[in-house]
């Protein structure tokens, strides 16, 4: 369960107006793709010009702790699902609970000015094929994500946490 191959993100380029306003202060958002090998690469970019010329964007004092969040994901998924068999009703509740617990534990890390989005998938191991991809238009200097996959004999689970800096 991963992103698309490198270089696949050409679709977003070429639509916007171009100008010679490179002197004005701007926020640069970039479209980031994640390859199947976990590498992060920039595939396109978008510059938003700030309406207030004096406004300064200093960036985060403390960055989103990717490794600490990955540890949280491993811990939550493992403890919730290790001995579990897939059952439609209980796994539906488990997915919601897992997302809430992950959010609460990441919030407890108290990283200032970061908004958090948690997505959790739980599925039955039935020999079917599945692909999960995501793309983000954000500022890669401040925004990032953590991801974890869990599997036992009966089910699999994928949890992604996206940390978005509040500009």
């Amino acid at each position, binding site marked *: 369960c991963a*992103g*698309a*191959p490198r270089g*696949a*993100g*050409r*679709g*977003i380029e070429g*639509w*916007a107006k*171009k100008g010679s*306003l490179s002197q004005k202060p701007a*926020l640069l*958002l970039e*479209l980031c793709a994640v390859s199947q090998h976990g590498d992060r690469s920039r595939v*396109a*970019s*978008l*510059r*938003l*010009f*700030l*309406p207030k010329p004096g406004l300064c964007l200093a960036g985060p004092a403390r960055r989103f702790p990717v490794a600490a969040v990955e540890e949280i994901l491993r811990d939550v998924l493992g403890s919730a699902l290790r001995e579990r068999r897939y059952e*439609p009703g209980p*796994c539906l509740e*488990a997915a*919601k609970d*897992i*997302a*809430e617990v*992950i*959010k609460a534990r*990441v*919030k407890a890390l108290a990283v200032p000015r970061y*908004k*958090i*989005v*948690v*997505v*959790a*998938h*739980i*599925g*039955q191991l*039935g*020999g*079917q*094929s*599945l*692909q*999960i*991809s*995501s*793309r*983000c*238009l*954000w*500022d890669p200097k401040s925004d990032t994500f953590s991801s974890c996959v869990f599997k036992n004999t009966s089910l699999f689970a994928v949890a992604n946490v996206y940390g*978005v800096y*509040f500009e």
Partner: protein
Amino acid sequence: MEEFHPHNDEMIFNADEAHNIVKECIENVLGKADYNHNKVNQWTAAIVEQSLTHLVKLGKTYKYIVTCAVMQRSGAGLHTASSCFWDTTTDGTCTVRWENRTMNCIVNVFAVAIIL
């Protein structure tokens, strides 16, 4: 480098608009196709990239996260849940579920406002 001047004063995420955009992107990519393991990678990439392109064209100052899951229909179950810590007055989410005879597709859009 693409350049854009934000003009929108209302910072409320329009979930219906995003729903229509994403549904159209899924139809364009998956349409009448049957599940194909060799193509699913480029399908999911195309869906998320086209969705992002159209969302950006709305001209709102948002950061977007778009997630797409495409699963072969075999009777196996799949549950997706999300939980967000953000400003509920400006940020929002939209989920689109789509299916045909051979596959299921779930697309989530999360929009996080940039206050300039």
